[in-house]
Protein backbone atom coordinates (compact mmCIF):
# COMPACT_ATOMS: atom_id res chain seq x y z
CA UNK A 1 0.00 0.00 0.00
CA UNK A 2 1.28 3.42 -0.92
CA UNK A 3 1.43 6.16 1.65
CA UNK A 4 -0.49 9.36 0.90
CA UNK A 5 0.68 12.04 3.36
CA UNK A 6 -2.10 14.22 4.71
CA UNK A 7 -0.13 17.47 4.53
CA UNK A 8 0.23 17.35 0.74
CA UNK A 9 -2.15 18.09 -2.13
CA UNK A 10 -2.36 15.98 -5.27
CA UNK A 11 -3.25 15.90 -8.97
CA UNK A 12 -5.03 13.21 -10.95
CA UNK A 13 -1.78 12.81 -12.88
CA UNK A 14 -0.04 11.69 -9.67
CA UNK A 15 2.00 14.74 -8.71
CA UNK A 16 2.13 15.90 -5.10
CA UNK A 17 2.44 19.54 -3.98
CA UNK A 18 3.67 20.82 -0.61
CA UNK A 19 3.07 24.40 0.52
CA UNK A 20 6.40 25.49 2.00
CA UNK A 21 5.30 29.06 2.63
CA UNK A 22 5.96 32.41 1.03
CA UNK A 23 4.16 31.47 -2.15
CA UNK A 24 6.54 28.57 -2.70
CA UNK A 25 5.40 25.04 -3.49
CA UNK A 26 7.53 21.91 -3.63
CA UNK A 27 6.48 19.31 -6.22
CA UNK A 28 7.17 15.63 -6.72
CA UNK A 29 5.51 12.43 -7.90
CA UNK A 30 3.51 10.20 -5.60
CA UNK A 31 4.56 6.89 -4.23
CA UNK A 32 1.79 5.32 -6.30
CA UNK A 33 3.19 6.96 -9.45
CA UNK A 34 6.66 5.55 -8.92
CA UNK A 35 5.13 2.09 -8.42
CA UNK A 36 3.29 2.38 -11.72
CA UNK A 37 6.39 3.53 -13.56
CA UNK A 38 8.83 1.03 -12.08
CA UNK A 39 12.58 1.65 -11.83
CA UNK A 40 13.21 5.25 -12.85
CA UNK A 41 16.36 5.80 -14.84
CA UNK A 42 16.18 9.39 -16.04
CA UNK A 43 14.48 12.68 -15.26
CA UNK A 44 14.23 15.65 -17.56
CA UNK A 45 13.72 18.70 -15.37
CA UNK A 46 12.24 22.07 -16.34
CA UNK A 47 14.56 25.06 -16.61
CA UNK A 48 14.99 27.20 -13.51
CA UNK A 49 13.32 30.57 -14.04
CA UNK A 50 10.93 29.16 -16.62
CA UNK A 51 7.18 29.75 -16.54
CA UNK A 52 5.01 26.67 -16.32
CA UNK A 53 1.26 26.43 -16.74
CA UNK A 54 -1.04 24.12 -14.86
CA UNK A 55 -1.80 20.92 -16.79
CA UNK A 56 1.01 21.35 -19.31
CA UNK A 57 3.95 18.95 -19.57
CA UNK A 58 7.05 20.42 -17.97
CA UNK A 59 9.40 17.43 -17.76
CA UNK A 60 9.82 13.77 -18.56
CA UNK A 61 10.22 10.78 -16.28
CA UNK A 62 11.76 7.75 -17.87
CA UNK A 63 11.73 4.28 -16.38
CA UNK A 64 12.99 1.00 -17.74
CA UNK A 65 9.65 0.27 -19.39
CA UNK A 66 7.91 3.59 -19.76
CA UNK A 67 8.25 7.29 -20.27
CA UNK A 68 5.77 9.66 -18.73
CA UNK A 69 5.34 13.39 -18.91
CA UNK A 70 5.51 15.40 -15.73
CA UNK A 71 2.56 17.80 -15.66
CA UNK A 72 2.68 21.14 -13.92
CA UNK A 73 0.31 20.86 -10.93
CA UNK A 74 0.05 24.65 -10.61
CA UNK A 75 1.04 27.66 -12.70
CA UNK A 76 4.06 29.69 -11.74
CA UNK A 77 7.80 30.18 -12.03
CA UNK A 78 10.27 27.36 -11.51
CA UNK A 79 12.43 28.58 -8.66
CA UNK A 80 14.55 25.54 -8.00
CA UNK A 81 14.94 22.00 -9.36
CA UNK A 82 16.44 18.93 -7.72
CA UNK A 83 19.60 18.67 -9.84
CA UNK A 84 20.79 15.67 -7.84
CA UNK A 85 18.07 13.55 -9.45
CA UNK A 86 20.15 13.63 -12.64
CA UNK A 87 22.70 11.36 -10.99
CA UNK A 88 20.22 9.63 -8.68
CA UNK A 89 16.94 8.96 -10.46
CA UNK A 90 16.38 6.02 -8.10
CA UNK A 91 15.55 8.54 -5.34
CA UNK A 92 12.19 8.92 -7.07
CA UNK A 93 11.57 5.25 -6.28
CA UNK A 94 13.22 5.13 -2.88
CA UNK A 95 11.95 8.35 -1.34
CA UNK A 96 9.42 10.08 -3.60
CA UNK A 97 8.20 12.48 -0.89
CA UNK A 98 11.67 13.28 0.42
CA UNK A 99 14.96 13.15 -1.46
CA UNK A 100 13.01 12.53 -4.65
CA UNK A 101 11.39 15.99 -4.75
CA UNK A 102 11.49 17.44 -8.27
CA UNK A 103 11.09 21.22 -8.16
CA UNK A 104 9.95 24.27 -6.26
CA UNK A 105 7.43 26.56 -7.94
CA UNK A 106 6.84 30.17 -7.06
CA UNK A 107 3.14 30.91 -7.39
CA UNK A 108 0.32 33.03 -6.04
CA UNK A 109 -0.99 32.31 -2.60
CA UNK A 110 -3.86 29.89 -2.88
CA UNK A 111 -2.49 28.36 -6.08
CA UNK A 112 -3.02 24.89 -4.70
CA UNK A 113 -6.61 25.43 -3.60
CA UNK A 114 -8.08 23.47 -6.51
CA UNK A 115 -5.90 20.41 -5.93
CA UNK A 116 -7.02 17.10 -4.43
CA UNK A 117 -6.60 16.41 -0.75
CA UNK A 118 -5.09 13.14 0.42
CA UNK A 119 -8.42 11.36 0.81
CA UNK A 120 -9.65 12.38 -2.62
CA UNK A 121 -6.37 11.36 -4.27
CA UNK A 122 -6.31 8.02 -2.47
CA UNK A 123 -9.80 7.35 -3.77
CA UNK A 124 -8.98 8.29 -7.36
CA UNK A 125 -5.69 6.41 -7.41
CA UNK A 126 -7.29 3.41 -5.73
CA UNK A 127 -4.64 3.21 -3.03
Amino acid sequence: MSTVPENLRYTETHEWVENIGGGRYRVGITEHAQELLGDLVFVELPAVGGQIRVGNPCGVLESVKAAADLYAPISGTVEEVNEALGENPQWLNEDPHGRGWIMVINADAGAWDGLLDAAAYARIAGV
Partner: protein
Amino acid sequence: MPYIPHGADEVAQMQAAIGITDLEALFDEVPAQLEGHDLLLPAGLSEMALRRELEERAAANTPLRCFAGGGAYAHHIPAIVWEIAGRGEFYTAYTPYQAEASQGTLQVLYEYQSFLTRLTEMEVANASLYDGASALAEACLMALRLQGEGKAILVPDNLLPAWREVLHSILGLQEIPLLGVPYDRQTGRLQLPEGENDSAALIIPQINAFGGLEAVDALTDWAHARQMLAIAVVNPLALAILKAPGVWGQGGADLVVGEGQPLGIPLSAGGPFFGFLTCRKAHVRQMPGRLVARTVDVQGREGFCLTLQAREQHIRRGKATSNICTNQGLMVIAATIHMAALGGDGLRQTAVACHRQARRLRDLLADVPGVQWPFSGPFFHEFVLRLPLSAKAVRDTLLERGILAGICLAEWGMGEAGDLLVCVTELASDADLLDYRDALLATLKDLSA
Protein backbone atom coordinates in the same frame (compact mmCIF):
# COMPACT_ATOMS: atom_id res chain seq x y z
CA MET B 1 2.85 -28.22 -49.79
CA PRO B 2 5.98 -26.06 -49.58
CA TYR B 3 6.83 -25.25 -45.98
CA ILE B 4 3.48 -26.38 -44.54
CA PRO B 5 3.95 -29.65 -42.69
CA HIS B 6 0.37 -30.78 -41.98
CA GLY B 7 -0.79 -34.25 -42.87
CA ALA B 8 -4.45 -34.77 -43.82
CA ASP B 9 -5.21 -36.73 -40.66
CA GLU B 10 -3.64 -34.03 -38.52
CA VAL B 11 -5.76 -31.38 -40.20
CA ALA B 12 -8.85 -33.43 -39.42
CA GLN B 13 -7.85 -33.74 -35.75
CA MET B 14 -7.17 -30.04 -35.50
CA GLN B 15 -10.49 -29.15 -37.11
CA ALA B 16 -12.25 -31.43 -34.66
CA ALA B 17 -10.52 -29.71 -31.74
CA ILE B 18 -11.70 -26.34 -33.04
CA GLY B 19 -15.19 -27.67 -33.81
CA ILE B 20 -15.21 -27.06 -37.54
CA THR B 21 -15.38 -29.40 -40.51
CA ASP B 22 -13.94 -27.12 -43.15
CA LEU B 23 -10.99 -24.73 -43.04
CA GLU B 24 -13.20 -22.12 -44.70
CA ALA B 25 -15.08 -21.82 -41.41
CA LEU B 26 -12.01 -20.17 -39.90
CA PHE B 27 -12.90 -17.09 -41.93
CA ASP B 28 -16.57 -16.89 -40.99
CA GLU B 29 -16.10 -13.43 -39.46
CA VAL B 30 -14.87 -11.98 -42.75
CA PRO B 31 -17.69 -10.32 -44.72
CA ALA B 32 -18.37 -12.59 -47.71
CA GLN B 33 -18.24 -9.70 -50.18
CA LEU B 34 -14.52 -9.28 -49.44
CA GLU B 35 -13.50 -12.76 -50.55
CA GLY B 36 -13.39 -14.80 -53.70
CA HIS B 37 -11.23 -12.76 -56.03
CA ASP B 38 -8.87 -14.36 -58.49
CA LEU B 39 -5.30 -14.22 -57.37
CA LEU B 40 -3.20 -13.37 -60.40
CA LEU B 41 -0.02 -15.15 -59.51
CA PRO B 42 1.90 -17.71 -61.54
CA ALA B 43 2.00 -21.36 -60.47
CA GLY B 44 4.64 -22.39 -57.96
CA LEU B 45 8.01 -23.89 -58.85
CA SER B 46 9.92 -26.77 -57.36
CA GLU B 47 13.07 -25.72 -55.54
CA MET B 48 15.13 -27.18 -58.38
CA ALA B 49 13.27 -25.19 -61.03
CA LEU B 50 13.43 -22.06 -58.89
CA ARG B 51 17.19 -22.42 -58.44
CA ARG B 52 17.60 -22.68 -62.18
CA GLU B 53 15.46 -19.61 -62.79
CA LEU B 54 17.36 -17.60 -60.20
CA GLU B 55 20.64 -18.53 -61.84
CA GLU B 56 19.31 -17.44 -65.21
CA ARG B 57 18.15 -14.10 -63.81
CA ALA B 58 21.48 -13.58 -62.05
CA ALA B 59 23.30 -14.40 -65.30
CA ALA B 60 21.20 -11.79 -67.11
CA ASN B 61 23.10 -9.16 -65.12
CA THR B 62 26.36 -8.41 -66.92
CA PRO B 63 29.46 -9.26 -64.86
CA LEU B 64 31.52 -6.06 -64.66
CA ARG B 65 34.76 -4.94 -63.09
CA CYS B 66 33.55 -2.16 -60.83
CA PHE B 67 35.04 1.35 -60.89
CA ALA B 68 31.87 3.01 -59.63
CA GLY B 69 31.45 4.32 -56.09
CA GLY B 70 29.17 7.20 -55.18
CA GLY B 71 28.23 5.81 -51.78
CA ALA B 72 28.42 2.07 -52.60
CA TYR B 73 31.82 0.40 -52.82
CA ALA B 74 33.13 -2.92 -54.10
CA HIS B 75 35.38 -4.49 -51.47
CA HIS B 76 36.67 -7.92 -50.62
CA ILE B 77 34.62 -9.63 -47.92
CA PRO B 78 36.43 -12.41 -46.03
CA ALA B 79 34.73 -15.78 -46.52
CA ILE B 80 34.03 -16.20 -42.82
CA VAL B 81 31.89 -13.07 -42.64
CA TRP B 82 28.76 -14.40 -44.31
CA GLU B 83 29.57 -17.96 -43.31
CA ILE B 84 28.91 -16.91 -39.72
CA ALA B 85 26.34 -14.18 -40.33
CA GLY B 86 24.31 -16.68 -42.36
CA ARG B 87 24.04 -19.10 -39.45
CA GLY B 88 20.41 -19.71 -38.60
CA GLU B 89 20.92 -18.58 -35.00
CA PHE B 90 21.67 -15.06 -36.29
CA TYR B 91 19.76 -15.14 -39.56
CA THR B 92 16.40 -16.29 -38.15
CA ALA B 93 16.33 -14.58 -34.74
CA TYR B 94 14.07 -11.64 -33.96
CA THR B 95 14.95 -8.32 -32.34
CA PRO B 96 16.55 -9.17 -28.97
CA TYR B 97 13.65 -8.12 -26.76
CA GLN B 98 13.96 -11.33 -24.69
CA ALA B 99 17.48 -10.61 -23.52
CA GLU B 100 18.18 -13.98 -21.88
CA ALA B 101 17.44 -15.78 -25.15
CA SER B 102 19.37 -13.28 -27.29
CA GLN B 103 22.75 -12.83 -25.64
CA GLY B 104 24.48 -13.69 -28.92
CA THR B 105 22.87 -10.92 -30.95
CA LEU B 106 23.11 -8.49 -28.03
CA GLN B 107 26.81 -9.02 -27.45
CA VAL B 108 27.51 -8.66 -31.17
CA LEU B 109 25.58 -5.38 -31.18
CA TYR B 110 27.49 -4.16 -28.13
CA GLU B 111 30.76 -5.04 -29.87
CA TYR B 112 29.52 -3.24 -32.99
CA GLN B 113 28.77 -0.12 -30.93
CA SER B 114 32.25 -0.38 -29.43
CA PHE B 115 33.93 -0.75 -32.85
CA LEU B 116 32.07 2.29 -34.17
CA THR B 117 32.71 4.54 -31.18
CA ARG B 118 36.41 3.71 -31.38
CA LEU B 119 36.48 4.30 -35.12
CA THR B 120 34.72 7.67 -34.95
CA GLU B 121 36.13 8.61 -31.51
CA MET B 122 32.67 9.32 -30.18
CA GLU B 123 30.97 8.02 -27.02
CA VAL B 124 27.76 6.35 -28.16
CA ALA B 125 26.75 4.43 -31.29
CA ASN B 126 23.24 3.15 -31.87
CA ALA B 127 22.68 -0.37 -33.21
CA SER B 128 22.22 0.97 -36.79
CA LEU B 129 19.62 2.63 -39.00
CA TYR B 130 18.41 1.74 -42.52
CA ASP B 131 21.21 3.27 -44.59
CA GLY B 132 23.58 6.19 -44.57
CA ALA B 133 21.21 8.66 -46.20
CA SER B 134 18.25 7.94 -43.93
CA ALA B 135 20.64 7.96 -40.94
CA LEU B 136 21.63 11.49 -41.96
CA ALA B 137 17.95 12.50 -42.03
CA GLU B 138 17.57 11.07 -38.51
CA ALA B 139 20.70 12.93 -37.39
CA CYS B 140 19.23 16.19 -38.69
CA LEU B 141 15.99 15.57 -36.77
CA MET B 142 18.07 14.80 -33.70
CA ALA B 143 20.01 18.04 -34.16
CA LEU B 144 16.74 19.96 -34.34
CA ARG B 145 15.50 18.35 -31.12
CA LEU B 146 18.75 19.45 -29.46
CA GLN B 147 18.82 22.92 -30.97
CA GLY B 148 15.17 23.87 -30.93
CA GLU B 149 12.66 23.43 -33.71
CA GLY B 150 12.11 25.91 -36.50
CA LYS B 151 15.78 26.24 -37.39
CA ALA B 152 17.40 25.26 -40.70
CA ILE B 153 19.94 22.61 -41.62
CA LEU B 154 22.89 23.58 -43.83
CA VAL B 155 23.19 20.99 -46.58
CA PRO B 156 26.29 21.07 -48.79
CA ASP B 157 25.74 21.13 -52.54
CA ASN B 158 28.60 18.63 -52.80
CA LEU B 159 26.85 16.05 -50.64
CA LEU B 160 25.86 12.95 -52.66
CA PRO B 161 22.71 13.97 -54.57
CA ALA B 162 20.69 10.92 -53.54
CA TRP B 163 21.39 11.81 -49.91
CA ARG B 164 20.19 15.36 -50.50
CA GLU B 165 17.02 13.95 -52.05
CA VAL B 166 16.41 11.78 -48.98
CA LEU B 167 16.79 14.80 -46.72
CA HIS B 168 14.24 16.68 -48.80
CA SER B 169 11.80 13.73 -48.74
CA ILE B 170 11.96 13.06 -45.02
CA LEU B 171 12.63 16.50 -43.50
CA GLY B 172 10.31 18.13 -46.03
CA LEU B 173 7.38 16.35 -44.38
CA GLN B 174 7.90 18.57 -41.35
CA GLU B 175 8.68 21.60 -43.48
CA ILE B 176 12.19 21.90 -42.08
CA PRO B 177 14.22 24.48 -44.03
CA LEU B 178 17.24 23.03 -45.83
CA LEU B 179 19.74 25.64 -46.96
CA GLY B 180 22.32 24.77 -49.61
CA VAL B 181 26.02 25.47 -49.06
CA PRO B 182 27.93 26.06 -52.33
CA TYR B 183 31.26 24.51 -53.26
CA ASP B 184 34.30 26.01 -54.93
CA ARG B 185 34.31 25.23 -58.66
CA GLN B 186 38.10 24.83 -58.69
CA THR B 187 38.47 22.40 -55.82
CA GLY B 188 35.01 20.91 -55.43
CA ARG B 189 35.31 21.72 -51.72
CA LEU B 190 32.81 23.57 -49.54
CA GLN B 191 32.76 27.35 -49.42
CA LEU B 192 31.57 28.64 -46.10
CA PRO B 193 28.72 31.12 -46.21
CA GLU B 194 29.61 34.55 -44.89
CA GLY B 195 27.78 36.59 -42.30
CA GLU B 196 25.31 35.60 -39.62
CA ASN B 197 23.69 32.23 -39.58
CA ASP B 198 21.44 30.74 -36.93
CA SER B 199 20.89 27.31 -38.44
CA ALA B 200 20.74 24.25 -36.21
CA ALA B 201 23.54 22.29 -37.84
CA LEU B 202 26.07 22.08 -40.64
CA ILE B 203 26.52 18.80 -42.49
CA ILE B 204 30.18 18.10 -43.26
CA PRO B 205 30.80 15.35 -45.83
CA GLN B 206 34.20 13.79 -45.50
CA ILE B 207 34.41 12.54 -48.40
CA ASN B 208 32.39 14.84 -50.69
CA ALA B 209 30.44 13.76 -53.79
CA PHE B 210 33.49 14.34 -56.02
CA GLY B 211 35.66 12.09 -53.91
CA GLY B 212 37.51 15.08 -52.45
CA LEU B 213 38.60 15.64 -48.87
CA GLU B 214 37.22 18.62 -46.99
CA ALA B 215 39.02 20.92 -44.52
CA VAL B 216 37.08 19.35 -41.67
CA ASP B 217 38.77 21.17 -38.79
CA ALA B 218 37.88 24.60 -40.13
CA LEU B 219 34.34 23.54 -41.01
CA THR B 220 33.72 22.13 -37.54
CA ASP B 221 35.07 25.23 -35.85
CA TRP B 222 33.00 27.45 -38.16
CA ALA B 223 29.84 25.63 -37.11
CA HIS B 224 30.67 25.70 -33.42
CA ALA B 225 31.53 29.39 -33.51
CA ARG B 226 27.93 29.97 -34.62
CA GLN B 227 26.41 27.65 -31.98
CA MET B 228 25.60 25.08 -34.65
CA LEU B 229 26.11 21.37 -34.32
CA ALA B 230 28.57 19.74 -36.73
CA ILE B 231 27.15 16.61 -38.36
CA ALA B 232 29.96 14.57 -39.90
CA VAL B 233 29.21 12.24 -42.83
CA VAL B 234 32.05 9.77 -43.15
CA ASN B 235 33.18 6.63 -44.96
CA PRO B 236 34.04 4.11 -42.22
CA LEU B 237 36.83 2.49 -44.21
CA ALA B 238 38.48 5.83 -44.91
CA LEU B 239 38.53 6.53 -41.17
CA ALA B 240 41.27 3.93 -40.87
CA ILE B 241 43.57 6.63 -42.29
CA LEU B 242 41.59 9.87 -41.98
CA LYS B 243 41.14 11.94 -38.84
CA ALA B 244 38.29 10.68 -36.65
CA PRO B 245 35.35 13.13 -36.50
CA GLY B 246 35.41 13.05 -32.71
CA VAL B 247 38.61 15.15 -32.86
CA TRP B 248 37.78 17.46 -35.77
CA GLY B 249 38.57 21.09 -34.97
CA GLN B 250 38.61 22.37 -31.40
CA GLY B 251 35.55 20.52 -30.15
CA GLY B 252 35.03 17.57 -32.47
CA ALA B 253 31.92 16.77 -34.48
CA ASP B 254 28.69 16.42 -32.49
CA LEU B 255 26.94 13.78 -34.55
CA VAL B 256 28.56 11.31 -36.93
CA VAL B 257 26.73 9.31 -39.57
CA GLY B 258 27.72 7.22 -42.53
CA GLU B 259 26.98 4.36 -44.84
CA GLY B 260 28.22 1.13 -43.29
CA GLN B 261 28.27 -0.87 -46.53
CA PRO B 262 32.10 -0.80 -46.97
CA LEU B 263 32.29 -2.94 -43.80
CA GLY B 264 31.47 -6.36 -45.23
CA ILE B 265 28.14 -5.76 -46.94
CA PRO B 266 27.66 -6.98 -50.54
CA LEU B 267 26.74 -4.30 -53.06
CA SER B 268 23.52 -6.16 -53.90
CA ALA B 269 22.37 -3.36 -56.22
CA GLY B 270 22.16 -0.90 -53.34
CA GLY B 271 20.80 -2.73 -50.33
CA PRO B 272 20.34 -3.90 -47.70
CA PHE B 273 23.13 -1.74 -46.31
CA PHE B 274 23.13 -0.07 -42.90
CA GLY B 275 23.51 3.44 -41.59
CA PHE B 276 25.51 4.22 -38.49
CA LEU B 277 25.04 7.08 -36.05
CA THR B 278 27.37 8.02 -33.21
CA CYS B 279 27.19 10.92 -30.78
CA ARG B 280 28.22 12.28 -27.38
CA LYS B 281 26.74 10.75 -24.26
CA ALA B 282 25.13 14.08 -23.37
CA HIS B 283 22.90 13.75 -26.43
CA VAL B 284 22.00 10.09 -26.12
CA ARG B 285 18.38 10.63 -25.14
CA GLN B 286 17.67 12.39 -28.40
CA MET B 287 19.26 9.60 -30.42
CA PRO B 288 16.88 7.41 -32.45
CA GLY B 289 17.22 3.67 -32.88
CA ARG B 290 18.12 0.75 -30.68
CA LEU B 291 20.88 0.80 -28.12
CA VAL B 292 22.49 -2.12 -26.26
CA ALA B 293 24.03 -1.80 -22.79
CA ARG B 294 26.24 -4.03 -20.70
CA THR B 295 24.80 -4.90 -17.30
CA VAL B 296 24.59 -7.81 -14.86
CA ASP B 297 21.97 -10.45 -14.15
CA VAL B 298 20.42 -11.39 -10.82
CA GLN B 299 23.47 -13.47 -9.97
CA GLY B 300 25.91 -10.75 -10.92
CA ARG B 301 26.93 -12.34 -14.23
CA GLU B 302 27.78 -9.98 -17.09
CA GLY B 303 25.09 -9.72 -19.73
CA PHE B 304 23.65 -7.40 -22.35
CA CYS B 305 20.21 -5.89 -22.90
CA LEU B 306 18.45 -3.22 -24.92
CA THR B 307 18.36 0.05 -23.06
CA LEU B 308 16.69 3.48 -23.15
CA GLN B 309 13.76 1.81 -24.88
CA ALA B 310 11.46 4.49 -23.54
CA ARG B 311 12.72 6.73 -26.39
CA GLU B 312 11.40 4.27 -28.95
CA GLN B 313 8.08 4.03 -30.73
CA HIS B 314 6.87 0.80 -29.11
CA ILE B 315 6.70 2.62 -25.77
CA ARG B 316 6.71 6.33 -26.55
CA ARG B 317 4.40 6.00 -29.58
CA GLY B 318 3.68 9.45 -31.05
CA LYS B 319 6.33 11.14 -28.89
CA ALA B 320 9.17 8.78 -29.83
CA THR B 321 12.48 10.09 -31.15
CA SER B 322 11.71 8.33 -34.45
CA ASN B 323 9.23 5.91 -35.95
CA ILE B 324 12.07 3.47 -36.62
CA CYS B 325 11.45 -0.06 -35.36
CA THR B 326 13.81 -2.45 -37.12
CA ASN B 327 17.47 -1.73 -37.46
CA GLN B 328 19.61 -3.55 -40.01
CA GLY B 329 20.51 -6.30 -37.52
CA LEU B 330 21.95 -8.93 -39.82
CA MET B 331 24.02 -6.35 -41.72
CA VAL B 332 25.48 -5.15 -38.44
CA ILE B 333 26.29 -8.70 -37.39
CA ALA B 334 28.13 -9.18 -40.69
CA ALA B 335 29.88 -5.83 -40.30
CA THR B 336 31.03 -6.71 -36.78
CA ILE B 337 32.50 -10.00 -37.96
CA HIS B 338 34.09 -8.13 -40.87
CA MET B 339 35.65 -5.54 -38.56
CA ALA B 340 36.95 -8.30 -36.29
CA ALA B 341 38.27 -10.33 -39.22
CA LEU B 342 40.17 -7.38 -40.66
CA GLY B 343 41.18 -6.03 -37.29
CA GLY B 344 42.59 -2.57 -36.87
CA ASP B 345 45.65 -3.40 -38.97
CA GLY B 346 43.65 -5.04 -41.75
CA LEU B 347 41.27 -2.11 -42.03
CA ARG B 348 44.21 0.26 -42.38
CA GLN B 349 45.89 -1.96 -44.99
CA THR B 350 42.65 -2.05 -46.99
CA ALA B 351 42.26 1.71 -46.85
CA VAL B 352 45.89 2.22 -47.83
CA ALA B 353 45.50 -0.19 -50.76
CA CYS B 354 42.40 1.69 -51.97
CA HIS B 355 44.26 4.97 -51.90
CA ARG B 356 47.39 3.53 -53.54
CA GLN B 357 45.46 1.93 -56.41
CA ALA B 358 43.35 5.04 -56.93
CA ARG B 359 46.49 7.17 -57.20
CA ARG B 360 47.99 4.65 -59.56
CA LEU B 361 45.02 4.77 -61.90
CA ARG B 362 45.03 8.54 -61.82
CA ASP B 363 48.69 8.54 -62.76
CA LEU B 364 48.08 6.03 -65.56
CA LEU B 365 45.28 8.14 -66.99
CA ALA B 366 47.37 11.30 -67.01
CA ASP B 367 48.73 10.33 -70.41
CA VAL B 368 45.34 9.72 -72.02
CA PRO B 369 44.88 12.49 -74.60
CA GLY B 370 42.20 15.03 -73.82
CA VAL B 371 41.47 14.06 -70.22
CA GLN B 372 41.48 16.67 -67.48
CA TRP B 373 41.16 16.81 -63.72
CA PRO B 374 38.46 19.36 -62.98
CA PHE B 375 39.09 19.40 -59.21
CA SER B 376 42.40 19.85 -57.51
CA GLY B 377 43.02 18.68 -53.97
CA PRO B 378 43.44 15.46 -52.02
CA PHE B 379 41.18 12.43 -52.39
CA PHE B 380 40.77 8.98 -50.82
CA HIS B 381 39.75 6.44 -53.46
CA GLU B 382 37.49 8.37 -55.79
CA PHE B 383 38.14 11.23 -58.22
CA VAL B 384 36.54 13.04 -61.15
CA LEU B 385 37.93 12.53 -64.63
CA ARG B 386 36.83 15.02 -67.29
CA LEU B 387 36.65 13.33 -70.68
CA PRO B 388 36.70 15.12 -74.00
CA LEU B 389 33.49 13.25 -74.97
CA SER B 390 30.19 12.49 -73.31
CA ALA B 391 30.95 10.47 -70.19
CA LYS B 392 27.73 8.57 -70.70
CA ALA B 393 28.74 7.42 -74.18
CA VAL B 394 32.14 6.33 -72.91
CA ARG B 395 30.68 4.51 -69.90
CA ASP B 396 28.10 2.67 -72.03
CA THR B 397 30.75 1.59 -74.51
CA LEU B 398 33.04 0.36 -71.76
CA LEU B 399 30.21 -1.84 -70.45
CA GLU B 400 30.73 -3.93 -73.57
CA ARG B 401 34.34 -4.42 -72.47
CA GLY B 402 33.20 -5.67 -69.08
CA ILE B 403 34.03 -2.49 -67.21
CA LEU B 404 31.75 -0.26 -65.15
CA ALA B 405 33.93 2.80 -65.66
CA GLY B 406 32.33 5.12 -63.13
CA ILE B 407 29.36 7.39 -62.58
CA CYS B 408 28.40 10.15 -65.01
CA LEU B 409 28.07 13.30 -62.94
CA ALA B 410 25.65 14.71 -65.50
CA GLU B 411 23.19 11.95 -64.56
CA TRP B 412 23.34 13.34 -61.04
CA GLY B 413 22.72 16.84 -62.33
CA MET B 414 26.26 17.83 -61.35
CA GLY B 415 29.43 18.77 -63.20
CA GLU B 416 29.80 18.71 -66.97
CA ALA B 417 28.86 16.19 -69.65
CA GLY B 418 32.37 14.76 -69.75
CA ASP B 419 32.72 14.26 -66.00
CA LEU B 420 33.13 10.70 -64.83
CA LEU B 421 33.42 9.88 -61.09
CA VAL B 422 35.88 7.00 -60.87
CA CYS B 423 36.38 4.83 -57.80
CA VAL B 424 39.25 2.38 -57.24
CA THR B 425 39.32 -0.05 -54.35
CA GLU B 426 41.71 -2.75 -53.21
CA LEU B 427 39.90 -5.17 -55.52
CA ALA B 428 41.51 -3.56 -58.59
CA SER B 429 44.83 -5.24 -59.37
CA ASP B 430 47.56 -3.46 -61.30
CA ALA B 431 46.49 -5.45 -64.36
CA ASP B 432 42.90 -4.20 -63.93
CA LEU B 433 44.19 -0.63 -63.88
CA LEU B 434 46.12 -1.15 -67.11
CA ASP B 435 43.05 -2.74 -68.70
CA TYR B 436 41.01 0.27 -67.66
CA ARG B 437 43.46 2.67 -69.27
CA ASP B 438 43.72 0.63 -72.46
CA ALA B 439 39.97 0.21 -72.74
CA LEU B 440 39.45 3.92 -72.17
CA LEU B 441 42.05 4.80 -74.79
CA ALA B 442 40.45 2.47 -77.31
CA THR B 443 36.96 3.73 -76.55
CA LEU B 444 37.92 7.38 -76.87
CA LYS B 445 39.55 6.58 -80.19
CA ASP B 446 36.54 4.61 -81.46
CA LEU B 447 34.05 7.25 -80.39
CA SER B 448 36.08 10.12 -81.83
CA ALA B 449 36.45 8.38 -85.18
